[in-house]
């Protein structure tokens, strides 16, 4: 990866400035033009190194619901249930993990009540219980994943 791409990733993780020219500082740091910074970010997005560029809203603050949920699915049934779970628009990401509870997904809904409704629908569709584990407390770690 080009050094400019690394600098962009390391510096803009949690701080895109809200100024008239937000890319001026990183452009100077990289020794390239602002247009080139923009082009590099676009390419990082297009190639999938970045999944998003810009502000992320807080679900609860905006009136939405967000939770982490887990299910215990026998291996022979995993494929079917996985397809059913992923067919819900409210399922944001879904990982298979090594544990008895082997399916872990994030639910994001337009309203807080949407979480319980969606969980009920997933349980009805799949025939398996869903364990709901909404966050009680977030311990902020900052974003400083450096390449």
């Amino acid at each position, binding site marked *: 990866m080009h050094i400019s791409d690394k600098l962009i990733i390391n510096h803009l993780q949690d701080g895109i400035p809200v100024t008239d020219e937000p890319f001026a500082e990183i452009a100077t740091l990289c020794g390239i033009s602002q247009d080139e910074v923009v082009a590099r970010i676009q390419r990082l997005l297009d190639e999938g190194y970045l*999944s998003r560029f810009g502000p992320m809203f807080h679900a609860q603050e905006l009136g*939405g619901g967000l939770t982490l949920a887990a299910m215990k699915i026998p291996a022979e049934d995993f494929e079917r249930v996985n397809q059913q779970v992923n067919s819900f628009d409210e399922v944001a990401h879904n990982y298979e993990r090594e544990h008895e509870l082997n399916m872990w997904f994030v639910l994001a809904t337009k309203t807080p009540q949407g979480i319980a409704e969606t969980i009920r629908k997933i349980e009805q569709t799949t025939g398996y219980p869903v364990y709901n584990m909404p966050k*009680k407390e977030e311990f902020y770690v900052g974003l400083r994943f450096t390449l």
Partner: protein
Amino acid sequence: MLNTAQQHALRLLIQEGLPLVSRPYACLAEQIGSDEDSVRAILKDWQESKLIKRFGLVLNHHKLGYVANAMVVWDVPDDAVESIAAKLIGFSGVTLCYQRPRRLPQWRFNLFCMIHGKNRADVLAYIDDIVQQQNLQHIEHKVLFSTFQYKQRGGRYAVASAGAA
């Protein structure tokens, strides 16, 4: 100042991300029929009031070569959650840390953190270091590596009914 309709339009626009041009806030202002200063002012307001949680870029760790993704879960006495969490977040490899409810008898772990590494051995060694350095041997933990990521979509939370991440 933006009126309610303009604020709503702005939220919908930035849900898709920031426009990739050298003056993104001017570009947003033009699309909602406002001016750049007003757009910047309200974005700062939303940041300060925590409506906007993060204002940056989001990495795809997997694509960047950090293919070992571990959810490390700890069974911490409820009154010690904060002090243990404070120890965990001191490590730069810990990228998220949440307290969540237990789901007994199926699930007794109440503190979750994420650790990304280039391979499993690195991640396991890193967790061993955390345990040794912070004397967490008495706290039971489990490491849940992901074996497959089936779905990831960007945080798109409709604000159609003033609703959203």
